[in-house]
């Protein structure tokens, strides 16, 4: 139940909405052999590694429960923690900005950069800035943003969109990456091979020049500690460390749900996150800063963009516990086959299917809650125990309420009416025997009419029996 007037992510900016109906976009992705191969390989590899990394921790379930409890406390007292964070960041020389939505956040960041007189910035990998379409907004304001995370760079150079939260170029293989570098990176060596080490070296040389020239950097944040105003970025390549320390101005855009109350709470999440995301015991680089370092300007942009609306739904708000680890994507049988682009939103997979429709309102993402077989694999691996299947089912009812009178609703209502009375149901079961006609040639049904044709597009249906079970029991 989103209340009227509550800020949701505005349309026309950023990337949170399905562009085509999910079943259509998914069917297109399913036919892409290269994509299927790349995704199948990558997800099955990381799945196995994660399982091993998690199995090493004897108190994993307790950690998971602690992670969920800490996040729930943050969400229940967000008003208090946000003000505390603002106070602490300000006291340490930073400036805090509040953005109700993507447009406001983009405007704030563009204005801050204009004030510095710079026209180019370097970026740390950040989902929040992908969500609000910051790069596009900055380009429109005459500012060039360079992604410095290797996979984000591949996506940016390829004029592409991320297809995974953690591994945005998961849909690409090394051959495709070499082609992108040769085409789009002016300083790439002409003899570049598709060896991972050579590709990384080319990107490294390219990025090194950007780092040394940059005066402004933009980051997201994995965590923000309210008690000290400390921000934390967790990464694997060291590009984040470069961006956070070299430029004179640092601008961090962060969703308001990223808060942790205290340093002690960070201990839980620095165990949960690396093992769940990259299957590492500890990630290579954890950068933390409290306010502005001497000689540096620091700005923190706190982003709502539909989060308050999400918080208003008691059965949907746990989606805001998410720490963007991607474990649910990697185990999802739907994501594994369709990839992230089919979901439209920068948040794909199971978490995207519950988060995106809440940030935008279900009217703008009506297919996503249905893009799941409810197999439950996502809930099992979620490090903050988000019951994604139950949430999907809840959001489905919100979509049904929004759509109102549809042929499907009429059919479901009629079926419920029939099934709520044993006599009506007994007769309906007997009437089902008429289906025997459809299966008279093959002893199974190969073509069903109307919407049920979706079943027989790839599956037979057994020929209905001569006698229902209840009739057999009566005659026994």
């Amino acid at each position, binding site marked *: 139940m989103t209340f009227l007037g509550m800020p949701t992510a505005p349309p026309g900016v950023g990337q949170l909405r399905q562009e085509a109906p999910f*079943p259509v976009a*998914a*069917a297109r992705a*399913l036919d892409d052999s290269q994509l299927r191969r790349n995704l199948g390989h990558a997800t099955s590899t990381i799945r196995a590694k994660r399982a091993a990394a998690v199995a090493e921790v004897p108190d994993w379930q307790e950690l998971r429960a602690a992670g969920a409890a800490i996040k729930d406390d943050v969400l229940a007292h967000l008003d208090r923690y946000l003000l505390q964070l603002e106070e602490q960041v300000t006291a340490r020389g930073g400036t805090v900005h509040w953005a109700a939505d993507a447009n406001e956040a983009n405007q704030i960041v563009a204005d801050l950069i204009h004030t510095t007189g710079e026209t180019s910035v370097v970026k740390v990998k950040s989902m929040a800035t992908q969500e609000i379409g910051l790069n596009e907004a900055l380009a429109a304001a005459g500012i060039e943003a360079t992604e410095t995370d290797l996979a984000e760079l591949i996506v940016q150079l390829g004029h592409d969109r991320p297809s995974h939260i953690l591994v945005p170029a998961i849909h690409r293989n090394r051959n495709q990456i070499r082609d992108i570098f040769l085409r789009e990176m002016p300083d790439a060596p002409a003899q570049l091979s598709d060896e991972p080490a050579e590709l990384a070296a080319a990107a490294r040389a390219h990025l090194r020049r950007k780092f040394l020239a940059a005066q402004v950097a933009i980051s997201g944040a994995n965590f923000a500690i309210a008690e000290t105003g400390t921000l934390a970025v967790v990464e694997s390549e060291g590009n984040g460390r470069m961006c956070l320390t070299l430029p004179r101005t640092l601008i961090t855009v962060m969703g308001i749900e990223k808060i942790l109350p205290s340093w002690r709470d960070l201990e839980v999440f620095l165990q949960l996150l690396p093992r769940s995301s990259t299957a590492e015991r500890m990630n290579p680089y954890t950068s933390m800063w409290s306010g502005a370092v001497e000689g540096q300007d620091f700005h923190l942009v706190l982003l709502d963009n539909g989060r308050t609306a999400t918080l208003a739904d008691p059965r949907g708000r746990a989606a805001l516990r998410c720490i963007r680890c991607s474990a649910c994507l990697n185990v999802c*049988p*739907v994501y594994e*086959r*369709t990839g992230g682009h089919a979901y439209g939103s920068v948040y794909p997979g199971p978490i995207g299917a519950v988060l995106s429709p809440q940030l935008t309102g279900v009217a703008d993402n009506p297919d996503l*809650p*249905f*893009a*799941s*077989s*409810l*197999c*439950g*694999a996502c*809930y*099992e691996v979620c490090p903050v125990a988000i019951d994604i299947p139950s949430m999907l*089912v809840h959001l*489905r*009812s*919100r*979509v*049904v309420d929004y759509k109102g009178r549809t042929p*499907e*609703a009429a059919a*479901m*209502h009629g*079926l*419920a*009416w029939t*099934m*709520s*009375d*044993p006599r009506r*149901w*007994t007769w309906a*079961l007997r009437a*089902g025997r008429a289906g025997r006609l459809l299966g008279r040639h093959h002893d*199974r049904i*190969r073509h069903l009419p109307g*919407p*049920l044709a*979706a*079943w027989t*597009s*790839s*599956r*037979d*249906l*057994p020929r*209905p*029996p001569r*006698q*229902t*079970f*209840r009739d*057999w*029991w009566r005659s026994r």
Partner: protein
Amino acid sequence: MRAALFVTCLVDGVVPQVAKATVRVLERVGVTVDMPFQQTCCGQMHVNTGYPREAIPLVRNHVAAFEGYEAIVVPSGSCTAAIRHQHADVARLAGDAALAAAAEAIAARTWELSEFLVDVLGVTDVGAYFPHRVTYHPTCHSLRLLRVGQRPLRLLRAVQGIDLVELPGAEQCCGFGGTFALKNPAVSAAMLADKIAAMRRTGAEFATAGDASCLLHIGGGLTRLSTGIGTRHLAEILAVTRRER
């Protein structure tokens, strides 16, 4: 011991042989089976498709149908999970606390077939004989919502003559997902294709599971492709003896 059978709507109308087999197994191990005729459907399809309000009369009917029985057996992991994890919620949606309490009480007396045999009766060998190569698919709701674990496999291993082979990637969903199969037919088919490929690698003659719904989907794909692999519900394998086919 007496137990009431919750047939489930799908088994009643489409694959009644599954319920007949369940009755045979239960009677063979000494259970007196009751068949409450007021039963219809657990309402899971309504809830999972976004129509929880339409499920209210179904939950009400289910509670009325089974209120007087001490043990209820279901040849379906998914319907058992709906009774355990959804019924009380649906009743609360109706604002009916008494119905919620009654639904919870019934859920506490409801068992999926393998749970009932292994946990309640303490039986793993039901005297079955099935001289075929069989592979077992642990359906998602049995696996993750009920956590039936090894119970179906323990029952299958005790079957005489059976050649039980492990299914590669067994814990991956088959792609059924209720109305998911109709709303996302292409993704559902892609998942089914991989499940079928895994089944073919086992060389099994039969694929088995504890859910007739998933088997309807898997079996529909197996016959469409003329794979020659048949499907048998767990109860159908347990029902066969040396004397009775």
